[in-house]
């Protein structure tokens, strides 16, 4: 629950309804599946939902209520207390016991709570990348296994190992890049809306994905190249 003065900045923009104009009203998180006009009880206080907003979940999906400050103080502290004060401009001096934080410092402080989740995402990311690399390497290797006779014919015709590597690398890199583009399109347009909290795939992530795909493709083609080099061109003379 987040309490704000009714006329202060920081209220979410409701997708439905409006922001509160007086005490006893609230903007609810869409994740709570409430409608405008519903009544809810929070900490024994009756609140009427006047707006529903998306993208205001905290910590990977914890739903929130935005309520007028007085209601929040009554529910949480039973007295007029505040945990933080937002200011326009930088205060020159603050009362004893207060600390001034810049917006970046506030962001970093909030991110500290998300550290565990972020690390989990990083580990998952790494594991998925390893799986993708393994799958692409397997496809390239299996395709090289199937094409032993083709390699033999190409070698007998004068194809060097470098030429074979170029062909295999092109196949693996194209495969990786197509997979990366498909993944990016899915992430951007198909999967993000299904995630129950705000998820943003950054441009740098897409760039990293492209470079990684290129590297994975080249590494995967080495698996196929090993097989291609081992093929004896004399195989081309054997009957099918």
């Amino acid at each position: 629950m987040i309490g704000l003065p009714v006329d202060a900045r920081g209220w979410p923009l409701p997708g439905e309804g409006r922001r509160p104009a007086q005490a006893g009203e609230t903007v609810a998180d869409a994740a709570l599946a409430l409608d405008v006009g519903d009544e809810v009880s929070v900490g024994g206080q009756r609140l009427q939902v006047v707006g529903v907003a998306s993208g205001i979940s905290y910590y990977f999906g914890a739903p929130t209520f935005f309520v007028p400050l007085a209601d929040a103080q009554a529910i949480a502290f039973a007295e007029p207390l505040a945990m933080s004060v937002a200011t326009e401009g930088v205060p020159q001096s603050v009362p004893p016991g207060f600390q001034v934080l810049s917006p970046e410092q506030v962001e970093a402080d909030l991110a500290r709570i998300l550290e565990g989740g972020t690390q989990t995402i990083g580990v998952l990311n790494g594991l998925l990348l390893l799986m993708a690399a393994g799958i692409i390497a397997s496809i390239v290797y299996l395709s090289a296994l199937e094409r032993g006779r083709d390699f033999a014919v190409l070698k007998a015709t004068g194809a060097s190992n470098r030429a074979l590597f170029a062909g295999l690398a092109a196949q693996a890199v194209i495969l990786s890049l197509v997979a990366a583009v498909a993944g990016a399109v899915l992430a951007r347009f198909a999967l993000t809306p299904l995630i129950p909290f705000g998820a943003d795939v950054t441009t740098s992530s897409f760039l990293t994905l492209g470079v990684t795909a290129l590297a994975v493709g080249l590494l995967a083609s080495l698996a196929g190249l090993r097989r291609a080099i081992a093929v004896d061109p004399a195989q081309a003379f054997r009957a099918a």
Partner: protein
Amino acid sequence: MAELSVRDLTVEYSSGGYMARPIDGLDLDVSPGELVLLLGASGSGKTTLLSVLARILTPKTGTVRLGDTVVSELEGPALVHYRRHTVGIVFQAFNLVPSLSAAENVQVPLRLAGARAGPARARTEELLGRMGLQDRMRHRPGDLSGGQQQRVAIARALAHEPVLVLADEPTAHLDYIQVEGVLRLLREVAGGGRIVVVASHDERMLPLADRIVELTPRRSPAEVAVPPRLQVAPGQEVFAQGDAGDFVYVVEEGEVDLVRVRFDGGDELVARMEPGRYFGELAPLFGLRRSATARAATAAVVQGLTVAEFRRRTGEGGVRQALAGGQG
């Protein structure tokens, strides 16, 4: 145009751990414009000789020379250059790359030889047009008949204008109408001053050849007519692994060992033949080379028999017994 010269060529390789020598001391000279037919049964060394001429296989001894190039000594970039520019190969069973169209298959050696895309395309269209395949250029091998695939394979072998064209069983897998077309094409290829070497066991190809090289081991009628009676000292050979199979032998006195020469150099005892036992039946019966060496274990006397005499003495049971347990 270059002449092809093969001198004292011997090829050995490992066959299941044992030493096989399909070609032993071969000499051959071929002039430009000649079509040579390598004739022989399966396993007689036809494909092996083609592999040596393509410098895919290295001979144990001997030299292969094409003009000024000593083919049998080529290595590294010179070998790659030889394969890319000098030799064209029509493989058995066509061996076209199934994922490429007919035109792309023909373009492979051209692009490897360094041709640019435009000229490579033009050359491909010209060749496939000459082969009567102008409307099949974009088809993949799986969508072409056997005869069409063989024509694509020949076009691929000729694309980079090699001076030496090697064809391995080019009429296998084809019906008689398709065979006629392929024969005409091969004759036409040699007409351009190239050397064409064709390996086949198809005797329909005989009239096509300027020269025939018989690779199935045979002895002259005079040799065959007189089976020898041999007295051999301990360690002396009656015949050696890889020899032509001429006679069946029967042990009259002493003992004879049949040993196989392993590729790594050692000998492996296969059987010890005592008086009354026949050995060396399979090679003369089936026109094969000896698969083992017969060496006297003690002082021995062995009598050679013609196949006819062996059959007369043993009946059909002798042949069946030879197949069940006989050696070379």
